[in-house]
């Protein structure tokens, strides 16, 4: 596939080609007790096509974990499986399980709606509702039945401050959210996602449609909120991953391949595929 032959063999690629199982290279993670999310041999099919192959990974609590990997390797799929957004897609089938705080997410008794309130999500393309800025931010509270104006206002301000948007929009809260710039819209979506005080915040390439300045703001924001929330972020930008994340997982062909502390994974990757990817030689 590349002209200059690699020094070490492609273990993953070979295993996949030969149809053999292989264990992901995982190292340097905190104790199970410090992990909020535990993915346990999770597989997913879109109809007949398998998108995830027995992914097992633990996500440390209160830290930022980045998911990287070439396009189509299943990062979004994995992310959307955490808040069960894939339930909306017709023909999705799963195997294995995920545990949030040691509680199964895929047991039949799980209240999916309650789950989604605990797991916020920010999408690649900002998707504010065609409502006022205020209504956008308090949407999670509204659907939970909160009607007290005072509470709504307070949450709105707190969330917008957390999302570093308050100063820009505090005097136009009743205007349409669609009048904001792209970067502001994305921060608004972040504010909306954290308004409900989720335990885990899922971010799917939140900066891919933004300019460098807006990206920097959001990266700052992620670092700021990292202590309070557990962040699971998908990114294509290696610099970004190394800047914001504590841990990085490299996915490839629907499998988790290498997972460890960000610094280690970027500086001393253990697998050839990882090295080639993080140094930009393929992907």
């Amino acid at each position, binding site marked *: 596939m590349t002209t200059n032959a690699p020094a070490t063999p492609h273990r993953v690629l070979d295993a996949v080609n030969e149809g053999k199982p292989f264990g992901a290279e995982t190292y340097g993670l905190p104790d199970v007790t410090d992990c909020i999310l535990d993915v346990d041999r999770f597989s997913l099919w879109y109809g007949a096509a398998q998108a995830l192959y027995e992914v097992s990974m633990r996500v440390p609590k209160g830290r930022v974990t980045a998911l990287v990997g070439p396009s189509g390797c299943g990062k979004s799929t994995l992310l959307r499986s955490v*808040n069960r*957004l894939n339930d*909306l897609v*017709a023909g999705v089938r799963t195997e294995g399980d995920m545990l949030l705080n040691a509680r199964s997410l895929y047991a039949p008794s799980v209240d999916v*709606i*309650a*789950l*989604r*309130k605990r797991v*916020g*999500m920010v*999408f690649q*393309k900002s*998707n*504010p*509702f*065609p409502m006022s800025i205020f209504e956008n931010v308090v*949407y*999670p509270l*509204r*659907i*939970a*039945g909160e009607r007290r104006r005072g509470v709504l206002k307070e949450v709105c301000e707190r969330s917008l401050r957390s999302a570093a948007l308050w100063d820009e929009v505090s005097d136009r809260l009743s*205007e*349409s*959210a*669609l*009048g904001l*710039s792209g970067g502001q819209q994305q921060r608004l*979506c972040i504010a*909306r*996602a954290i308004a*409900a005080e989720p335990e885990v915040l899922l971010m799917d390439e939140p900066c891919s449609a933004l300019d460098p300045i807006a990206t920097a703001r959001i990266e700052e924001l992620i670092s700021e909120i990292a202590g309070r929330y557990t962040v699971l972020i998908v990114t294509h930008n290696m610099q970004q991953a190394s800047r914001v994340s504590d841990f990085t997982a490299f996915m490839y062909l629907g499998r988790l391949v290498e997972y460890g502390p960000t610094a280690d994974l970027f500086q001393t990757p253990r697998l050839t595929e990882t090295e080639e990817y993080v140094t930009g030689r393929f992907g």
Partner: protein
Amino acid sequence: MSSDAAISSRSTTGPRSLGVLPQWMMAFALSVCAIMIVGLLGLIVAQGAASFWPKPVDEITLHDGGTVLGIPIRSGVNFDGDPQTLYRIGNRDLGQIPFRWISESEIESRSRPSDVVLLERREWGIFIGRLAPDPETGETTTWEGFAGDLDDGAQRRREIDGLRGGALARVNRELTVNRQQIAEADLRLADGQRSGLGSAPWVIILGAGLLACGASFLSFARRARLRGALVAAGGLLVLWTALERPGLAESELVEWHQARVESLADEQREIEQRFVTLNERLVTLEDADRQHRVSVAASDGTLAPESQSATDRRLMASQVIRAIRPNAMSLWDRFGVFGSRWAEYLIDDPREANTEGGIFPVIVGTVTVTLLLTVVVVPLGVLAALYIREYAKQGVLISVLRVAINNLAGVPSIVYGIFGLGFFCYAVGGYIDGGPDASVTMGKAAWWIVAIGCASAFVSALLFRSKVRAAGVLWALGATAVLVLFATSPYFDGFFRVKLLDGEPTFGSSGLLWASLTLALLTLPVVIVSTEEAIAAVPQSLREASYGCGASRWQTISRVVLPGAMPGVMTGTILAMARGAGEVAPLMVVGAVKLAPELPIEPRAPFVFADRSFMHLGFHIFDLGFQSPDSEAARGMVWTTTLLLIVLVVTMNLAAIYLRGRLRSRLVGGHF
């Protein structure tokens, strides 16, 4: 090189010549369309507006010595090739045909004398003539005096009409109700001895069903207090209805019947007393009115009569609606008459087989039926579209359904009309009037067995909602069973049985409600299709955002999908309204009539009289143009009514487009 040149030459000449032709063809097609539309609209506007303009009257002296007074309408050529003119000469009650072609060769001379008077009358159409001396006094009134007489006459007429349409009509209604109450009491006596039950259980079942539906729908809302209040109100209503028809023991029933009939008879005597008093007053007023007559003579000197059969009596002042001197009017006067004719047209009842007077009841009928159809079709269509898009599993069944809905839009509208007549009017309406047909009524024992089976099926479906796989099938079966129970109940004998036995169906014949439902059915595909498209156009990312915040499906639909689809819903509503307002064929069968004696809405309870027949603009145009005894006389009305219908539809469209635009701008936001 040479092949290059060939290619380039082909690419410059070939496509260019072909490129101009399609463009020309498109431009041509567009201009043809534009000319047709503008032409049609222009014609309708011009003709519609002009038909109320007061035109001058010619006095024609013929070679044979006779004179004719007439309004020139249009010119043509007769069989001999002579030019001729159509004159409106009126005076129908003098035995004249009101329109007459006069060829130039017959005419000696023409003039426009300023003393010609044109009368618009309540009956017998227009009268053209001159003020004449009163045969008793021999004096001729001045124009001003004449106008004063007419004003007094109009005043008297208003008084008489007010009495007849107000107090007298009310007394008449009371009498009818009283008569029906007596008949009902008799019927109850007969019924009571047979079953002793009446309609009470039926009312209870119906009420409970409605309550259950309402409660389960309201459970979406969190307003427990509102729900409680509604349930309580519904319960009270049901109780009240049930108590209205108590089941009585036999001896009690006989006693009750006697007492009731006696009190009703007393009431009847009292009402009749009032009727006599009122009637006396009416007779007095009419006698007084008959004393005031006016003298207007036709060109041959005959005085305008009271009616064709009473030519010896002169025209009464109160019979004239408007008198003008068409040849002695300033432009200002003409505008005044023009305006007052339009006002009469818009707020009066029709006269003379609809060819004169106003079309107020037609407008009211059209607006009412359109609003009712909208109220029915929009919720139905939106809910159906929501189910198809947001709930149903997209599969073969849904595709088939979608094709079926699209095809429904292509079914000729008369088919809907016939369906409406057969199903709504005869089946459903007949059922409401007189209960299930004797041939389908179940035995009581069988009915209770089915009812209990059905109730247990419902309860189990409710209890094991999550466990039963085919819950949908169960629901469908249950609903069918309930319908069958309703349709075959031995306990229900109709809400309007008394009137029915009187030979007067209430809902069992065509009327406003059934017409609206038929039109709703007809326009349902439009609403479903446009709503569905709008729902599909709501970005999936917004749905995901909502679900991602922990919203339930219903919350997502009601807060994100439906508001986002609102412009599309509006479009569907507009199209449905415009189509419903302009439809004719189905209405001819299910409720529109040539002349409705009463308006379908009245300022007294229940305000909307859903069983009444009504008048409708589209049908009115058809009726005027093709069914009226004198199509020439109806010509002007056809134009104005067409104009009005178009104005109505265009106004509705504009209003809805404006609303949609506002909604859209709210959704899209100001700037980026």
